[in-house]
């Protein structure tokens, strides 16, 4: 519509109300967060400095929590990819009717309450939960496995809770791949595995990266799941922020932790975006 003749419409002005809203209630609070993170005193006396940051960085525990948070997100994301990719693939191979059913199942976790789902997982993963009962009954282990309050549990539940974020973009990308490419590969003598690794997988990389970004950011910031399934012995960044802000009322430190956490997440997202740009550049120009 560039250059349309009408009494010069300023279409972008339609974005102004939301821009103003975001300036006031999104950018301003985040700005405030950054500002407060430079308060050196818990009482917020106005003395500015990087004290909170050095306090965070100088304690190995904090760094370990940051590392674990980022790692647990990575593990859950990988799990999502491992199980979500085949599901997305299946979605593109079945009839429209079945696809609707599968997408319905995929979407279900998005729209059912996270508290509800997490609660279900407690029932499933507990010492006397469904999984452990099954394991004991099958004689796979003499003792119930520690699934609840363990990183394994957190990873499993995060993967389930955030799986839709991985599967949906994958479906989109896989659907865009010309089915003739797979046919062509087979006609050229390649079997299913070669076709997958040489054709389908590389061509779905943009979807993998898009899904990874969404899943990963959701996993590392999933406060409810992390706390309920992880328990207090597994400390992750969101809980640390909550603890500092609410239990200990140390806002400057909580703010600094928040800033460090956000910057870390954004850096990882930026890396993934850069990766997808370079791939996309090669694939689609």
């Amino acid at each position, binding site marked *: 519509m560039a250059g349309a003749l009408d009494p010069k419409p300023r279409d972008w002005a339609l974005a102004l109300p939301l821009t103003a809203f975001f300036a006031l209630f999104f950018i301003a609070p985040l700005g405030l967060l950054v500002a407060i993170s430079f308060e050196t005193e818990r009482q917020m006396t106005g003395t500015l400095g990087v004290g909170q940051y050095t306090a965070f960085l100088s304690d190995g525990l904090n760094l370990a929590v940051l590392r674990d948070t980022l790692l647990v997100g990575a593990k859950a994301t990988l799990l999502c990819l491992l199980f979500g990719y085949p599901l997305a693939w299946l979605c593109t191979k079945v009839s429209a009717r079945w696809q609707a059913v599968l997408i319905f199942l995929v979407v279900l976790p998005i729209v059912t309450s996270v508290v509800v789902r997490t609660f279900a997982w407690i029932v499933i993963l507990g*010492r006397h939960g469904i999984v452990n009962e099954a394991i004991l009954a099958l004689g796979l282990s003499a003792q119930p496995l520690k699934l609840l309050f363990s990183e394994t549990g957190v990873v499993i539940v995060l993967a389930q809770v955030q799986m839709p974020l991985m599967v949906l973009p994958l479906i989109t990308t896989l659907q865009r791949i010309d089915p003739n490419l797979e046919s062509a590969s087979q006609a050229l003598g390649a079997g299913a595995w070669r076709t997958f690794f040489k054709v389908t997988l590389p061509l779905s990389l943009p979807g993998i990266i898009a899904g990874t970004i969404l899943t990963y950011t959701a996993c590392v910031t999933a406060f409810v799941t992390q706390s309920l399934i992880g*328990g*207090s*012995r*597994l400390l992750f960044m969101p809980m640390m922020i909550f603890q500092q802000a609410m239990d200990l*009322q140390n806002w400057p430190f909580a703010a600094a932790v928040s800033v460090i956490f956000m910057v870390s997440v954004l850096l990882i997202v930026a890396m993934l975006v850069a990766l997808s740009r370079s791939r996309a550049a090669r694939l689609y120009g």
Partner: protein
Amino acid sequence: ADELVAATFGGTWANVQKQILAPYFVKRTGASVVQSPMLATEQIAKLTAAKGNQPPFDVAMLDEGPALEAIDAGLIAKYDPAKSPNFAALNPKFQGAYGPAITMQAIGIAYNPKTVKTPPTSWDDLWKPEYKGRVGITSLASTLGLAFLLDINRLAGGTEANMEPGFKKLKTLLPNLAAVSANFGAHGALFQQGEIDIGVQNFNFAEELKAKGVPIEFVRVDTGTPAWKTTMHIVAGALKPELAYAYVDSQISPDVQSEMQKSPWNVIPTSSKVPYAGLVAEKIAKTPADLDKMVFFDWAKVNQNRAAWTQQFNRDIRV
């Protein structure tokens, strides 16, 4: 109609205050009340956040440590006994200048009698190898967790100024830990789900669980029972000060307190007009003097160090 907003703790407290205090208060004032379960620390955080504005609730319910903190931060108002007819009947040590103690909380060990055959008698029993992966404690966000740590520290020769011995001892408990929960309420759920078989617990909450049919028994430890006061306060700048007084006064009224002392609640009364009875008399104290024999801590000192201990605790219990 007028509406009062009062903080309460989770678990037993939310239930008992909803079932006994709220109707009493409603009947007495004709106003309604919203009771919002929050940890003491959460209450302070919310009040701090709202400082200078209308506070989000009118009545605070705090344990000793957080209460001192709140007083220091100017979050709660001085308590005017003139506005509280039942205040005078309190045992004097429960008559705080910033609000009455509404109960004593006492802690000990709760265990599942189905899986723990020999009843424990001391904290040391939690360290027994047979309880590997079956013990539950709570984090320092709750007074229960703090009191436990302070007590094992005390027994290991430490003081509020020197927590080294306590933390050292705590570290040796790690192999036995099944869970560290945020507060005693969450702790109860773990007993029920069979996630833990033995652990630190509040007396009256354990008894409530037992009454609900959860397989649980409470015992006091033989080294002295750690206990603290739980207090109620009029929040500084409360929107409904009159109602707030009526609410707090209701909580310390003999009627309410004697109701609350009954099973399944077993809330230790603070009014001198309510004699100890039932399980309270049986397991905790027959006379007010028995209460004095319990173990108390210096919460002012605790407050100075809580942040550092929390960090230390986080570090030590991390898997």
